């Protein structure tokens, strides 16, 4: 369970959220909805620990995540619209660099399996500068595969499905359902509500803000 308690988040001098409370169940999927500029990415970046909180705490099972930050990021995969891929490295090299940085095994068989899980095995030796936006996104999503053999239990995804075609979207949905079955928790910001086949909770930022005003 992830408890967001009384969050106040500022972006520049503007308050994006004030006194924001949400509980996110373990093993569930939460879709964050809201119009452009409603603060979806800001909220995700605050949960991941990038944007400092003005007020409030984020607790995972009674432990403040920022006081146990190493443990928190160890169990977390964060993916946003910037994919974190260097354009001068190939798809496989980027994945390899990411794995070593996470401190996980860089077993070649697993690497191939991960690329296969998003249909990228044919493009392993392609430079990122030569990839289309969809291929880049898939190369970034290949990281999610490693949550199955490392003890990851949390995904924070920001608009992961925007550039995907039908086949890779199906593969992505498959990854999501396997992860949920393993009691993983997903927070996802997207406009595409067809993304999950299983049950999910909607967190509508526009609604929350409207209620605040009334």
């Amino acid at each position, binding site marked *: 369970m992830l408890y967001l308690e009384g969050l106040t988040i500022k*972006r*520049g001098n503007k308050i994006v959220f004030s006194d924001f409370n949400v509980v996110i169940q373990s093993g569930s999927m939460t879709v964050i909805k809201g119009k452009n500029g409603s603060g979806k990415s800001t909220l995700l*970046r605050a949960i991941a620990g990038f944007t400092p909180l003005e007020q409030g705490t984020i607790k995972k099972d009674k432990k403040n995540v920022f006081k146990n930050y190493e443990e928190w990021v160890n169990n977390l995969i*964060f993916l946003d619209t*910037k994919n*974190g891929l260097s354009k001068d490295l190939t798809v496989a090299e980027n994945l390899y660099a990411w794995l*070593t*940085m996470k401190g996980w095994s860089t077993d070649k068989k697993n690497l191939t399996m991960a690329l296969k899980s998003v249909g990228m095995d044919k493009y392993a030796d392609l430079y990122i500068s030569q990839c289309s936006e969809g291929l880049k996104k898939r190369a970034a999503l290949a990281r999610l595969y490693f949550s199955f053999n490392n003890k990851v239990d949390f995904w924070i995804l920001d608009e992961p499905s925007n550039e995907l075609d039908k086949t890779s979207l199906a593969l992505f949905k498959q990854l999501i359902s396997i992860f949920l079955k393993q009691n993983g928790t997903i927070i996802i910001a997207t406009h595409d509500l067809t993304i999950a086949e299983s049950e999910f909770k909607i967190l509508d930022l526009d609604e929350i803000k409207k209620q605040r005003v009334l």
Partner: protein
Amino acid sequence: MNSIYSSWSNIFLAHIKRDILINFRSLIDLISIIGFMILIIILFPLGLGPVQEKINIVSNAVIWVGLILAIIPSLEKLLQKDYENGWLDQIATSPIPLEIIMLSKGMSYWLIMLIPLILTSPIFAILLNMDLKNIPWLVISISSGSLAISLIGLIGSALILGTKRGNILLPILIIPLMTPILIFGVGVNEAIKINEPPYGNLFLLLAFTLIYLVISPFISALLVRIAIGR
């Protein structure tokens, strides 16, 4: 605890390898540094006229100033690329401390961009008519000073992350920090020229390098955290 440190050093080395690979795939930065340096070395004697003694007096300073000026354009990209493509976000959500990655960034920059300059500095020295007895000391002082310069550059590069037109601000912010390095670096060879022992200047230069080796990863990691939190 032991295993944590060994895994940190593995990640440190792996990250240096990654940066070296990236930089050798696009050699443009390295070529621009060496090209810029060669231009400075060529232009100075032309500006001074054909009297050999004049060149001899300034040769030492020209190499040091040329080194500092030549690397300024490339410093801006040291962290900018990884900031824009989201790699710094990925580092921030990994168990490795950001400080270690910053140290690896400073070291890889030094290895890629400044080692070639250190290796070619004897050639520049000969082109500028420097005394042969000065050349080993030039290489020693530049080896140490350039590490300090790249670590200062790392701070500057982290400082301008996410700002527009930061590249214009960067030299103004970091060149003042480099002045002690320049003074003591030049001092080593000036002492040799008048047959004095160069150790005072050299040790002060090394001291500055060590100070920046310690503080630069912490300052730049702090600045990167601010930049990705915006």
